[in-house]
Every structure is written in C-alpha cells, then in structure tokens.
C-alpha cells in the first residue's frame, strides 16, 4: 500500500518490457540501476584510481630512494614538475604524497572496495532482486565519478593538486598563500570530497536498508554470511562518521573563501600578521580524526568480511566463532568512535586525557585478536584449498597481525611521542590498512570473478601474482619500520641535508626498489583480469563449492538475479564438512528435512519451521501483490 508498491508495479512492468526488448546501451551499461553493473563500475573505476595512486607512490619513492637522480625521463608525464636539472619539484613531491593518500584511502579502498563488494554481494547473498533503491544506487556511483573527475582535474592545473597531506590540516590548507597546493588544488579537493561524502551516504543508506528489509525468507540476521555483517557495519560507520568530515570541510571552505576564523588564529605569513583570531587548528584535527579513525575501519572491515567467507569456504570448515566474529565487528566499530585522539597525542593534549585515549585504543586489540585467532582456528586442520583468493585471504590475516602489533606500540602515548609522524607510522598503516585491504580487494575479485563475468581467472597467474605481491609488500614495509625508529619523519622531500639521513640511504633505496618491483607485479593481475573477462575459461555455477546464495543463481546472472522464485534459506552459511553428510558442503537453501543424516539434534526442530519460512514471501521486489 505504499510508494514502494507503486514503484514495484512500475518495476515489474519495466521488467516484462525488457524481457522482450533490451534496454538501450546507456540504460544498461552507463546509467544502469542494476546492482551488478554498478558494482562493476565501482570496480573498474577503483582499479583505474589504484593504478594512478600506486604509480604516484612509485614516483615519490624514486625521489626518496635515489635523491638527486636524474628524472628527466619523466618529463613527458610530469612536464614542468621536473626541473631543468632533472629533479622532482619539491612542491610536487608534497602534492604526490597528498594525492596518493587521498586516492588510495577514499577512492580505491573506500569507494572501490565497499562500492564493488557491498553492491555486488548484498543483494546476491541476502537473496534480493536488487538494492532497495536502484536509482539512488546509480546516483551514488555517478557522484563518486564526478568527485573523482574533480580530483583528476586538480592534478593538471597550474598550481598543482592539494599538497597538505591526505589529512589536510589547517592552517596550511586554509591559507592559499601558504603553499601553491592550497590554492585551486585545495578548493577542488574540498569540492571533490564533499561530493564523495554524498556518494558514500547514498551508497550506505542503500546497503543498510537492503540488508534490513530485503533479506529473503528464512534469512535471519544470524544466518547472514559474515561478508554481509561486515558490509552492514561498515555502512553504519560511514553514515555516522562521514558527516563530521563534511562539517569540517564546510568550515574549512568558509575559512578559505569567506574570511571566517574557525581554524585560524594569530598567524604570521612573511612577517605580516593575518587578521584572524580566535579559531583553533586543533579543532580541525578533532573533527578530521573523528572521521579518520572510523575511516580506517571502513576500509578494513569489508576486507575482513570477504576474508571470513573465503577462509571458511576454502578450509572446508565452518567459520570458527561465528557470533564472536559478529560481536568483534561490532566492538571494533563502537570503539572506532572513541579513540580518535590517538592520532593527536603530540598536539599538546593533556597527558591524562592522552592516557584515557591510550587505554581505549589498546582495548581495540581485544576484538582484533578475536578475529585473528578465529581465522587461524578456522584454518587449523582444515582441508585447505589454496586458490588465489584463499592465498590473499591468508595473506591478509598475516598482514593484519603484523600491522596490528605495531598499532599496539603506537597506541602507547609515551612511545608515540618518538614515533609520531615518522616512517614507523607509515609502515604501520600501510601494512594493516593499505596492504591488508588491498589483499581483501584482490581476494574478493579472485573469488567472485566467476559470478561477475561468468568466466574464471587464470589460477596460475593468480598464484604468481600473490607470491610476488606478498613478498613485495613485506619487503617494502618491514624495513620501513626501522627507518621510522631511526627517526625519519614522513612527508619530507629528502634527507640528504642531515648527517643522520645519510646512514639510511641504502635502506631507503632498498624500499624503493621493492616498491617498484611490487608495482610491476600488479600487471600480472591486470593482464589476467582483462584477458579473462573476455577469454577466460567459462565458469561453472558454483566453482568453489560454496554455501552462500549467490552461487544458486545462473552462471550469467540476469536482471533480478534469480529466474523464478528467490530461494528460501534454512541454515547458516557455514555447513562445510558436516559430520554425517555425504557431501562436504550444504548450501543455505537446502532444508534440514533433506539432510536428516547430518542434522544436529537441535536442528531437527527447525524442520517444523520450514513451512512457515516458505510461506513468508512478502518482499520479492518483482512480485506484484
């Protein structure tokens, strides 16, 4: 009796319509409202940005590893940013670092990761025809696209893109006269981020409402795959934290363009006093990190969800501690909002307050450890199948543990005074956030590629890709810890003017070579990805013998995902190697009445409920009532 239904009527109609004649090209591939197409759009855009973002890091790694080297050969790409003598312009170095951070954190690992897998998997795994609102979902992607476009344009303007670090602290970012990157580049950065936040909001609203309202019959919350739990909580994190960044950015825009003093006070530039008094740059840091810390989990949680699914499937064992996994996701999400000031230990914060944030921060180690141990215990004595997706998932667990350990070190405010803003921090978050989430992204692509494109990725190339990347990532970031402990600050153009800097040139060189190596290793993936999309081996319906609902759809999934009725769900998604069962996996849509030989005593009671489940079919988006 609602708007929904009116729309539904419409949906059904248009559905019948294009059973007869196809949607035109624009509606089908460009302004599509189909979650699977939107997911692929996010994925391709994310990969595009990843290539750009990582290429940027290779350029500034060249500068760090080989200071003074002749980079004239980059002139065709970088033009005037390479000086006459073949050196990289120091201003552009800062811009590159900033763009690399922004692109990787927001465009690749937030939009790319959540956008791809939340969109693709939520309807397929909860058993829905599509997202709650296809239209808003489409808008979400196109907002993201426009936001990316603005950021892309900013790279090419004369004064260069934003250059104040991905955290854009004022006053540097607030005063155009402070640095060339704070001119037009920062304006575009802020505009781009404002649009990005809207895109993220639209996406998240859809993810949350779809999970709540459109689960198929029988799909209780405790039967949801852990991927869905992770996407759901991630979306909630985004809904709550991104608006605070929006506020921070709006205030910054006013400081930049309208003469307010929200973040500015008592500043001299070139010996001249600015009129601004009364604001506080520390205020910006509080606002930023209120988003910034949850953001790192927005990036990581989907990767952890993907890992849970893949590790269970490929260990042929139920996930260890399903409910503990959910609880730890929730605990991490909750704690994420009350630890932000651990990024601000050295801002002159009251040491007592610092110790409170330290205490809260260290508590995160508990749910994190729960997750890590649950992965390990799931793997323990499993019949492990080393698919590329599985390798990347195990790699993620390894990275999560090594990066988490350095997090505990940084979480101690006394230690952080020494380590803050050094390469130790850079190493910490690249391992635990950057590499781990990227591994989640890869794992997800290797695992669900057959569902996305109906073809398989080449497994051997996948294995090669994994080993090169895994070794490469550790070679890059392990030595970086020592560079940080030695006191090298991050975001410096070069260290050659300090005596102590000279002693670590070889290690810096090593890191840079490893980075270049890892960068080129990714072309194995890119080739595999694009080649297999068209020429890969044709996939079977359920290539990994997995339990979740997406594998009950046809090999080439059409509009509405299932032909005929949406399957009902009778069990959790982790019935692998169940004692007594003749097969080693029992998909979620198999009722307990058909598996009497393997039911646990309490599961026989569920048989009585099967009729009720089957009858409860009221939210099929294609059904007309």
């Amino acid at each position, binding site marked *: 009796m609602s708007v929904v239904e009116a729309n539904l009527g419409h949906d059904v109609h248009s559905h019948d319509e294009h059973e007869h004649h196809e949607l035109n090209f624009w509606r089908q591939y460009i302004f599509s409202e189909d979650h699977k197409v939107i997911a692929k759009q996010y994925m391709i855009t994310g990969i595009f940005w990843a290539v750009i973002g990582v290429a940027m890091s290779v350029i500034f790694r060249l500068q760090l590893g080989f200071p003074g080297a002749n980079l004239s050969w980059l002139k065709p790409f970088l033009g005037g940013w390479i000086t006459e003598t073949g050196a990289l312009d120091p201003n552009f170095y800062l811009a590159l670092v900033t763009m690399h951070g922004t692109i990787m954190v927001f465009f690749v690992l937030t939009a790319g990761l959540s956008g791809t897998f939340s969109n693709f998997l939520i309807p397929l795994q909860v058993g829905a025809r599509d997202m709650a609102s296809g239209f808003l979902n489409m808008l979400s992607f196109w907002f993201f696209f426009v936001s990316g476009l603005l950021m892309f344009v900013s790279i090419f303007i004369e004064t260069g893109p934003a250059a104040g670090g991905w955290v854009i602290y004022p006053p540097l970012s607030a005063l155009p006269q402070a640095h060339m990157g704070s001119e037009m580049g920062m304006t575009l950065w802020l505009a781009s981020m404002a649009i990005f936040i809207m895109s993220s909001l639209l996406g998240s609203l859809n993810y949350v*409402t779809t999970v709540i309202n459109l689960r198929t019959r029988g799909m*209780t919350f405790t039967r949801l795959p852990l991927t869905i739990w992770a996407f759901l909580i991630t979306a909630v994190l985004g809904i709550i934290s991104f608006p605070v960044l929006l506020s921070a950015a709006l205030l910054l825009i006013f400081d930049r363009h309208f003469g307010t003093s929200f973040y500015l006070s008592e500043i001299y530039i070139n010996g001249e006093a600015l009129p601004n008094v009364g604001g506080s740059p520390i205020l910006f840091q509080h606002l930023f990190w209120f988003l910034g810390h949850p953001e790192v989990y927005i990036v990581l949680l989907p990767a952890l969800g993907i890992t849970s699914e893949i590790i269970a499937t490929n260990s042929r064992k139920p996930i260890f501690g399903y409910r503990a996994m959910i609880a730890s996701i929730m605990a991490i999400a909750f704690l994420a909002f009350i630890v932000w000031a651990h990024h601000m230990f050295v801002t002159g914060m009251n040491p007592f307050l610092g110790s409170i944030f330290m205490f809260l921060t260290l508590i995160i180690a508990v749910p994190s450890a729960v997750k890590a141990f649950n992965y390990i215990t799931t793997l323990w004595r499993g019949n492990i199948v080393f698919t590329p997706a599985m390798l990347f998932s195990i790699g993620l667990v390894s990275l999560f543990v090594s990066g988490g350990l350095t997090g505990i070190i940084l979480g101690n405010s006394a230690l952080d005074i020494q380590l803050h803003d050094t390469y130790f921090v850079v190493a910490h978050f690249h391992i635990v956030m950057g590499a781990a989430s990227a591994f989640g992204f890869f794992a997800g692509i290797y695992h669900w590629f057959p569902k996305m494109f109906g073809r398989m990725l080449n497994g051997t190339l996948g294995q090669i890709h994994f080993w090169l990347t895994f070794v490469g990532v550790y070679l890059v970031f392990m030595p970086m810890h020592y560079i940080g402990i030695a006191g090298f600050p991050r975001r410096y153009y070069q260290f050659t003017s300090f005596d102590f800097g000279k002693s670590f040139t070889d290690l810096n060189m090593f890191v840079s070579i490893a980075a270049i190596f890892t960068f080129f290793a990714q072309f194995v993936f890119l080739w595999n990805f694009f080649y297999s999309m068209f020429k890969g081996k044709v996939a079977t319906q359920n290539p990994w013998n997995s339990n979740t609902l997406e594998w009950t759809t046809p090999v080439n999934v059409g509009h509405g995902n299932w032909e005929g009725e949406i399957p009902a769900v009778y069990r959790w998604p982790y019935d692998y190697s169940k004692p007594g069962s003749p097969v080693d996996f029992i998909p979620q849509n198999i009722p307990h009445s058909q598996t009497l030989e393997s039911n646990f005593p309490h599961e026989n009671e569920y048989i009585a409920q099967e009729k009720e489940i089957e009858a409860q079919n*009221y939210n099929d988006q294609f059904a007309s009532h």
Partner: protein
Amino acid sequence: MAATAQPNVKNVWLGGVEPMKASYGKLMMWFFLVSDTFTFSALLVSYGLVRFSFPAYAGKVADFVSSPAYWPIPEKVFDAMPFMHGIHAPLVFVGIMTFILIFSSVTMVLAVEAGHRMDRAAVEKYMLWTILGGATFLGCQAWEWTHFIHGTDSGTVVKEIVDGTWITKTVFGANLTENQYGPAAFADFFFFITGFHGTHVFSGVVLNYLVFYRTSTGMYERRGSYEMVEKVGLYWHFVDLVWVFVFTFFYLV
C-alpha cells in the same frame, strides 16, 4: 510490502518481510537523519569548543557592554523586535520564531494523521499550514539576520592593531570578519550554524510544497498511500528538533 501485505507474520526477523513494517524509503530517511545529526553535532561541538576558549563576561549583567575580548551574553545581543526600534525585548523575537516552527511541527503531525485516514482535504490543509509556518520562520530569520548585520545605532568602539599600530574604530553590525557584539567567532558560528539550519528549513519547505502539490493533484490518493507525507514529516520534525538545540546553544546558554 507494507503492513497490509504481510498478514499474520509471527516472526518478523525471519526474513521475507520488512521487519519494522517500514518501507525502505522510511528507513533511509531515518538513517539519513542519523547522519545529519552528526553533521549538526560536529558544528555544535565546534561552537562549544571555540566559545569556551574565550573568557565569559565577568561583570554585572546590567552593566554589560559588547567587546571582542569576551563572549557576549545572548539576551543582550538578540533583543530587537521588528517595528519596535529601541525597545529592549530580550529573546522575544526568537521565542516567537521558535514557537512558529514548533507549531508547524504540530500541523505536520496532523497532516500525517490525516494521511492515515486517507483524508485528502485535511492533508492539504495541514500541509499548507506547515508550509506557511516554515516560510514564516524563514522570513523571521531573514529579518533577524538583517538586523544582526546592520547592528545597533551606536555600534561598538573597538581597539585593534593594524600593521603594528593601534587604531580605534566603531564597528556597526556583523559580518564574517568582525562584529560589534563580541569576538569574530561569535558571528562566524552564528551565521554558519543558523544558516546551515536555515538551509535545511528551506529544503524542508520545498519538499513540503512538493508533497502538498502531489496531494492536491490526487497522486497519493490514487497510489493509496500518504507515506510520502510521513517521510517529509520525519524530516520536518528533525529540523525542528535541531532548532531546539541551536536555540538552546546560541540564545539560552
């Protein structure tokens, strides 16, 4: 999909139904409001932080004079009424504005209720009252801003350093860089937060008008549901609630 289509569902969390009998649109509105709450909270917390970094006025209230050196007492600043030039009426005008806005929330409740009864004429009537309330609020706010910007007849004499020398000048009214009432931050936050809220009210009025228009063309009647009225109603109540906080923080404390 909504209530009527789910007869006798015993276990609402079993899947296959909308567990809270709320359409996805309504849920989205709720979650959007959660998000927007954090936008406003961030602004209000920022306001609090900056405000308490300034000293409060220490003397007797009766002797209060504005100065950039300390945070002003709101009732000494917001004491003007239209057509009553020179009369000291502390917080009376903003009180009226607040009352109007809250009253428009009441009419919105009535519109939603009329929607449940499928009473098109009543929905139209109450939506119109709500729109009127919102528009009046915006009009009042425009007047208040104008007054705030133009200032009082006498202004405030301030001493400040410009290029190394002390100068004395009289400031009238307020803009984003200086104002006669107190520190620059006072006017900055006033303009930003009430402006941001006003933008929300404005969007609300536009949405309300859209819903009114669609009601009067009979669109919801044909659709058989006035759920859209409920959705804009949620938004409208939220905007009112936010105003209560803005009012408290800017005018009362």
